[in-house]
């Protein structure tokens, strides 16, 4: 099987179109081009890190994507927040996690699931704790600096 590296790669994930600087496609014996689970894992981690690195409202599609990537259920997330599972159904109907505070708590939770083992005990400057946005941005950049995540850029919101 031959690999083909592409310079820019577009991925539809979490209800949005993302751009990555590179990706590897594989040509299978029947001639179809495909993307391996290893490569998808790298790409999805980059997108998850990008979602977690902002303090914007968390859309329901982003929430579902982060659950998929971290192998968490909606119930796990609800339990973490001390909420009833039915609250998640309300988020689904509305299409987003309505409270930014709750959305940011979830982003922190997902980020630590993805990168906490490697970076969870790293010290950060006090300025990183000035706000949710400061912390989430610092954490996201730390994952990129440590080569645990590539950079994914949002190309187009759906």
């Amino acid at each position, binding site marked *: *099987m031959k690999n083909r590296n592409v310079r820019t790669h*577009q*991925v*539809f*994930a*979490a*209800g949005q*179109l993302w751009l990555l600087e590179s990706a590897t*496609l*594989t040509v*299978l*014996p*029947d001639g*179809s*081009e*495909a*993307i*391996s*689970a*290893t490569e*998808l*894992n790298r790409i*999805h981690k980059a997108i998850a890190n990008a979602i977690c690195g902002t303090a914007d409202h968390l859309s329901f*599609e982003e929430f579902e*994507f982060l*659950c*998929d*990537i971290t*192998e968490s*259920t*909606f*119930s796990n997330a609800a339990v973490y927040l001390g909420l009833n599972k039915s609250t998640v159904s309300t988020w689904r109907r509305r299409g987003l996690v309505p409270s930014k505070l709750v959305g940011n708590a979830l982003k922190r939770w997902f980020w630590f699931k993805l990168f906490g083992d490697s970076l969870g005990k790293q010290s950060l400057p006090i300025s990183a704790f000035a706000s949710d946005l400061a912390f989430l941005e610092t954490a996201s950049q730390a994952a990129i600096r440590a080569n645990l995540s590539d950079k994914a850029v949002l190309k187009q919101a*759906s």
Partner: protein
Amino acid sequence: MRRLSSDRVFVQHNPLTPRYGRAQAKLTWILKTSTSLGLRPHESAADRVELSLWAPNPEGRGHGYYACFRLFFESEVVTAAMLFCFYDGTEKSPGFRDLISALEFARLNGFKETYEE
């Protein structure tokens, strides 16, 4: 298929759609939790067969995930698997809430529980 390493399991490169994106994101869940619905021979090549699967929705309700993989063989050993079809009830795709309805659909599409060359 579950014994294959992650660099041997693929998703076919397809046009960008939300459903295709979800197929990629749900690959791990499908591999971990799916039930085989049957096999069918590939149209033209003897070194590959197609496998249909159904995985329940992780939340325990709603449409599950119906997927088809093409399995590639070398000396009767599976060397790679590629997901080429994913239905979850969105974008007018068929949706299956339970294993039985998915099994019925797979049979209608030529998948059999026992495979004969």
